[in-house]
């Protein structure tokens, strides 16, 4: 969870007086708070950590980093099914009441996919 993942801003809206965006991380789309990087615009890339954009990043750097993180398994850790992983590690069944997250296919915005 320490690593911040680059993503591309798809759309921006105000919610509860807070600037929020939909951000695409190589196919997975998440809600992200833009309050710390108020200059972000649609199409920009940002370094995002636990749902908050922390710094703008150029497109080439963002794409290289995303590719690396995918190879390292970081994206799976960040956006994958934590309960399934914990159950695997424990050699146990996943606890009741934990449901798999929606996959990228349901989560992604068609227009925003790279």
């Amino acid at each position, binding site marked *: *969870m*320490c*690593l*911040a993942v680059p993503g591309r801003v798809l759309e921006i809206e105000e919610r*509860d*007086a*807070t600037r929020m965006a939909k951000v695409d991380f190589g196919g997975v789309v*998440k*809600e*992200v*708070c833009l*309050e*710390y*990087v*108020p200059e972000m615009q649609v199409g920009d890339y940002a*370094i995002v*950590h*636990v*749902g*908050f954009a*922390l*710094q703008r*990043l*150029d497109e080439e*750097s963002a794409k*290289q*980093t995303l*590719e*690396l993180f995918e190879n*390292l*398994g*970081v994206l799976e*850790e*960040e*956006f*994958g099914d*934590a*309960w399934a*992983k*914990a*159950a695997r*590690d*424990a*050699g*146990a069944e996943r*606890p*009741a*009441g*934990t449901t798999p997250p929606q996959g990228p296919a349901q989560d992604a915005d068609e227009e925003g996919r790279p």
Partner: protein
Amino acid sequence: MKYLDEFSDPVLARRLFDEIRALTTQPWSLMEVCGGQTHSIIRHGIDQLLPDEIQLIHGPGCPVCVTPLETIDKALEIASRPEVVFCSFGDMLRVPGSGRDLFKVKSEGGDVRVVYSPLDALRIAQDNPDRQVVFFGIGFETTAPPNAMTVYQAKKLGIGNFSLLVSHVRVPPAIDAIMNSPDCRVQAFLAAGHVCTVMGTAEYPELAERHKVPIVVTGFEPLDILEGIRRAVRQLEAGRHVVENAYPRAVQPEGSPAARAMLADVFEVTDRAWRGIGMIPRSGWRLSPRYRDYDAEHRFSVTDIDTQESTVCRSGEVLQGLIKPHECAAFGKQCTPRNPLGATMVSSEGACAAYYLYRRLQVPTTQEASSVG
């Protein structure tokens, strides 16, 4: 150089390795502070491709690993309460407390939920006004601003059933503590790039000057790490000790002013215990008095925690760079990712997990063994 073809730009990687080799005239020990850097170094075999004189020491920069056992036990106690929805990042689920972990609490009926962002936990609080929603706020300077913003939002929106179990830590005091240790053998630091994305570089020149130690702000990609090593070695060979930014595409000298302003509003600096290392003065944050109502420790009065640390786990020495993971007798035997004794084996950013995952099970070299403090 069997790993070289795995680099995104093998030609540039070879050039950097060659430059580092040409620069190096004597042994040097460099600490990479961040667990993400450790992961990348081991995954790409950077430590094995460097000249024998360059020793990389893995630092304490994994937030999951350094969260104190007492805090984990407090989390487990709060998460067990029937009125509580306990929200956490996924990598905390299998971190062992004194007797169990969050996964076990969930299996026993506790309402533990994994969230991607602290704002997700705040939304759960809005949607469940009759429950107490607690978010496990761990992490370094990169994670603290999102958690600060979430508490700020909770107060602004009048959401009274949300609170934060806070265990935030700060990197510069940890660097200071490592350099002050009589066992210290670190001669240069690769500082954690994303921490500096928020905090900038202003805290480092004083440390570099006082300890006569080069500090190079470094990213996570293999080429970033090689460039950080090249700059650190160049300084060491020249007898210099200044702060350099080798990650300028993400790190501005001033960091993120908006994030730092929010940190200053919501948190205040405090002494903080690090798992396996112990108390480091002024190395953490807690909620400032204005936000005390959102402090889960205060709200749930979790006291009288009786912690029981593993007697064989040597993760504290791993976190301080005093031993390599495979030098612990339990590594790969009693201690595996399935049955971790310490957090360094749980978190993928932990040095023990990285060594286990990439099968670094060989015994230490003569040079490593002789240089262990």
